[in-house]
């Protein structure tokens, strides 16, 4: 079953915390990922972990354009089964 955007936001927050080993309290969809101190390769690791948990694959070409949490949630949402 497809997860809601709110669930995906929470999943991003948990996964980022696990991978970066830093607590993120006030993440919203408009949060710019780099402003969390997460670089592009860190973001890639978070995406990989989310893909694994959700059993989806996001095409590489979609990843370079991701700047905000919203961009990432959009990309994940598009790949979720209906």
């Amino acid at each position: 079953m497809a997860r809601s955007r709110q669930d995906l936001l929470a999943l991003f927050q948990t996964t980022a915390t696990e991978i970066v080993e830093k607590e993120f309290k006030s993440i919203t969809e408009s949060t710019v990922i780099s402003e969390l101190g997460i670089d592009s390769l860190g973001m890639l690791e978070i995406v990989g972990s989310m893909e694994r948990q959700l059993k989806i694959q996001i095409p590489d070409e979609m990843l370079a354009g991701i700047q905000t949490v919203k961009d990432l949630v959009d990309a994940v949402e598009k790949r979720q089964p209906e």
Partner: protein
Amino acid sequence: MKMKDSAQQERVYRLYATFFDKAEQERRWNPFRDVPWDKIPREGAHPILTTVAETFCCVESYLPDYVAKGINLVRPYFGQTWFAANWGYEESKHSIALLEYLLRSGARTPEQMFDLQNRLMENEWQLPFDTARRMTIYGCFQEMATFVIYVKQEQRAKELGDECLATIFRLNARDEIAHTRFYQDVTKVLMEEDRVGTLRDIAHVAKHFQMPGVGIVPDYEERIKVMRDDGRVDRGVFLQKVFFPVLKYLEITRQELQEAAWSKQPTAAE
């Protein structure tokens, strides 16, 4: 990196021989003779280009550390060692060309540059990874990133009418992509020897990757901000122009890397 197999050692030496032969035939240049010094704009260097040239010059100034530490790590591997020696020679030209540009354009005085060099040498660059295989993989990403930035800055220098600096960036970029190819080809040999271990190392290097100037070049973040604000360096570029192209050349996918990092499958060394 084991490479106990003499056939593999020979393959790496052949890669170096090919690299060297091609460099001798097509890529040798002299910073004093092959750079159009008379094409520095009459009004002098643009402030943004000055920052860019000086930043690259700073990063290249740690060459003594890069060579000393890098060459000792790969010392047991003949082809790699000779490549490291040649790499140092080529990189030294980048540093000389940029230093000469800053002086000849009038952007910096000799006193300022030597003072900067002294400040740079107060810090020492440390190897970011402690095995030859990881450093080879690091070379794939770092040289490719440097190539991409030089190409972007070459375009910027042209836009600002600085044909001299554009030429320096072009010559440097051409060397950097040749270095990238060598590291990538050696990595392919290493994958044949121990695919799981090499994939795991690629994932490890990607996770901990930083450009060499981070933490040692004075005001590094502010310098990068100048380039970022000028629109030449952004975070998406690294994935699009560096990370994914390197994976493509190595014929591996992001998913394979992640699986290798997470798997418990033993490597050839285990």
